[in-house]
C-alpha cells in the first residue's frame, strides 16, 4: 500500500518536474498568434482599422479587443483568411468601410514646399526629400496608406489609382451560363 503510494507520488513529482522544466526551457517568446495574424494583414500600416499599424491591430485581434472586419486594404479575402485562422465566422465590412483599388501617392512637385511633414508621416519611408528640398514618392515602395495626404500644408499630395497593365492583368473568372442542351426531340425538329 505504502509502496504503491510512493510510486504514484514519485511519478507525479517526476512528471511535474519535467513539465515545469520544459515550460521554462521551451517558453515561447511573444504571442505566436499575433505573428500569424500579422502575416495575413496587408502591411500597409495605414491605420484605417483604428490602430497605429498592422502589428498593433494584430495584437488587438489576438486579445479579442478588435473585430476582424476593420482592414479595408486586406479586402474580403483578408477577412476570410482571418476568419479561417481564428476559427470564427466571416463578417462583412461595416457601413462606410469598403476596400478601394490600389493607389499610390503622388506629389505635385510644382506645389511642394519641402516641409518634410509627409516624410514624418510615411510609415514605410517611401518618400525621399529633405527640408526645403522637393519631395518625391518612391512609387514602388508606397503602400497606398494615404497617411501623407492629411499632413501636407499645401495639399500637393494626391492618390493616383494604379492602372491595370499587361504585367498586372489577371485572367478573369470564367463565367458561363449553364444552358441545357437541346433535347433529342428538339434536335430532330430543327433538322
Amino acid at each position, binding site marked *: 500500500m505504502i509502496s504503491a503510494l510512493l510510486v504514484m507520488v514519485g511519478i507525479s513529482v517526476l512528471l511535474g518536474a519535467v513539465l515545469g522544466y520544459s515550460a521554462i526551457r521551451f517558453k515561447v517568446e511573444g504571442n505566436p498568434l499575433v505573428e500569424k495574424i500579422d502575416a495575413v494583414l496587408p*502591411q500597409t500600416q495605414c491605420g484605417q482599422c483604428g490602430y497605429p499599424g*498592422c502589428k498593433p491591430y494584430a495584437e488587438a485581434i489576438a486579445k479579442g479587443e478588435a473585430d476582424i472586419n476593420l482592414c479595408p486594404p486586406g479586402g474580403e479575402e483578408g477577412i476570410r483568411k482571418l476568419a479561417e485562422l481564428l476559427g470564427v465566422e466571416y463578417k462583412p465590412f461595416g457601413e462606410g468601410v469598403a476596400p478601394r483599388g490600389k493607389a499610390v501617392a503622388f506629389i505635385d512637385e510644382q506645389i511642394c514646399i519641402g516641409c518634410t511633414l509627409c516624410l514624418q508621416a510615411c510609415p*514605410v*519611408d*517611401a518618400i525621399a526629400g529633405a527640408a526645403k528640398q522637393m519631395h518625391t514618392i518612391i512609387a514602388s515602395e508606397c503602400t497606398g496608406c494615404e497617411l501623407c495626404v492629411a499632413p501636407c500644408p499645401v495639399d500637393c499630395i494626391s492618390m493616383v489609382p494604379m492602372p491595370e497593365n*499587361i*504585367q498586372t492583368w489577371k485572367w478573369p473568372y*470564367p463565367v458561363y451560363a*449553364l*444552358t441545357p442542351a437541346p433535347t433529342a426531340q428538339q434536335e430532330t425538329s430543327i433538322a
Partner: protein
Amino acid sequence: MRELSRFHGGIHPAEHKLESSEAPSRRAPLPARLILPLHQHIGNGARVEVQVGARVLKGQLLASAQGTISAPIHAPTSGTVIAIEPHAVPHPSALSGLCIHLVPDGEDRWIAHSPLDYRALPKAELLDRLRDAGIVGLGGAAFPTHVKYRLTPGQRIQTLVINGAECEPWITTDDRLMRERAAEIVGGIEVLRHLVEPAEGLVGIEDNKPQAIAAMRAACAGSDIEVVVVPTLYPSGGEKQLIKILTGKEVPSGGRPTNIGVACSNVATAYAIQRYVGHGEPLLTRLVTVTGHVRTPQNIEVLIGTPLEDLVRLAEPLPGVTGYVIGGPMMGQHVSTLQAPVVKATNCIIVKSAQLFPPPAPVMPCIRCARCAQVCPADLQPQELHWFAKARDFGKTQEYDLFDCIECGACAYVCPSHIPLVQYYRFAKSEIWQREQEQQAAEIARERHEYRLFRLEREKQEKAERLAQKEKAAVTAKAATPAPASAPAAAGADLDDTLQMRIDAAVARAKEQAAAAQPKNIDTLTPQQQAEVAAVEARRAKFTELASSSGADDEPPKQ
C-alpha cells in the same frame, strides 16, 4: 532504330496542315509602319535606347535587355522612329503595351554586320552575343535562349533535343522551314552543340511531315545529329512531352529540362541562331502561318513588328470572317484587334469562320467522367483542378500540381460537358501569382515599417544620451569654474538643447542661492525685538501651513 517512349494521354485533333503546308513560303513586302512592343515574353521588358525622331539602320539596337530574363529588340528595317507610346499588342487582355513605332524608309539599309567565328569565342561570351542578337525561343513562349543554355557549374547536358514536332493543328511554319532551309537549321544545331557539348543531338519530327523529315535527314547526313520520327499525337511538341518521347526521361515537377541533362530548342530558334552566327543578322524576321478562312493559306516570312492586318491581307481573307486566333486552335489566343503587331512569339494567325470554328457548345456541369485525366499529357487530374479553381481553393490547386499544367487544352477538347477547363487553370494561375506578389510586397512593407520604428527609437535614444552627456559636462564645468562657463561647452550643440540646459542651470542656481541665504542683522537685537521676530515667524509658518492645506486659490484667513 531508336526506342521511343510515350507520354501519358494525348489526343488526335483534326490536323488541317495541308491547307498551308504545300505552298512555298514567301516574303512579305515592307509594311508602312512597324510596331515593336518592348515586352514580348516573361521576365523584364527591354529598355529603350533610341529617341523619337532617330534615324535607324536595319539591325540597329532599339532597346536593350535589362535583367537576366530579357532580350533586346532591333530595328527590322531602316527608317525613322516616329513615336514611343502604348499601342495594341497581341495579348489576351486587349490592353496596350509600350511600343516603338518605326516608319521604314524603303531602303532597307543594313548596319555593319559580319559572320561570327563562334568556335574561337569563350562560351559565356557566345551566350552574351546570342542575347545581344535578341534571340529567343521561337516555338511559342519566346523564352530568351541565352538563359536556357547558361548552365550552372557542374551541370552537364547529355541530350540536345531540337523540336520539329509542330503538333498543333493548322500551324506549318516549322514544316516549311525544315523543307526549305534544313541546312541552316543544322548549322544552328551545331552552334548549340558547341555550346553545351551533348553526348547526342536529336531532332524530333512528327510522322505527318515526311518531306520535312527527308530534308532534315539529307541535311544531317555526315553529322551525328539524329533525326527521329515520332508518332503524330497532340501535344508531342510540348517540350516536356518531346523529351519524354525521345529520351524516356521525365522533367521533374517544377523543374527545367536541364535538371535531367536535357536542353531543348525549336528548329526556328536554331535557324535564327544560324542567321546570326553565319551572317551576323539579329532576330528581325520570322515565318508565320496565315491560314483558316483565307483564299491562299500560306507561310509568310515577315518582319517582326508588322501589323497583323497587313499580314492577313496578304492571304486574302474570304467573306464571313468571325474572328482571329494567334497561335493554334488548341493553345492560341483570340485577338480583339488586328492592329496588334507580329511579335517574336507569333507563329500563326488563323482567320475564323462559322464553318471552320462553330460557336462553342453550351457548357454543362462536370459529370466526373475523368476523360480529361485520361488524356492529360502532364498526368494531372484536370477535373479536380477544375473543381478547386472554380471554388477558388488555390491552395488545393497547387497541391494538385496546377503549375505542371502546360495549358495544352487536351482536357477541354475531350470534355463531354464542353467546360472551358484551361480558362479555369489560367485564372487560378494568375490569381496565385498575384497573391505571391502581394505577399512579397507586404513582406517588404513590414520590413521597412519595422526598420523605421527601430530607427525612430534609436534616434530618440541617441538624443537622450547626448543630452545627458551635455548636462554632465555642464555640471563638471560649473564645478571647475563657478562663473557661467557652460556656454562654451555647449557651443557645438543645437539651439534647443543649449536653451533647455541654460534654463535648467538658472533654476538650479536660484535654488542654491535661496538655500544659502542667511537672515542678516539679527545678532544685536534686544530680547523684546527677538520675541517679536519669533512671533512673526510663527505666524508665517502657520499661514504657510494653512495655505498648503486649504489650496493655493483660497483667500488667506484674516486675523
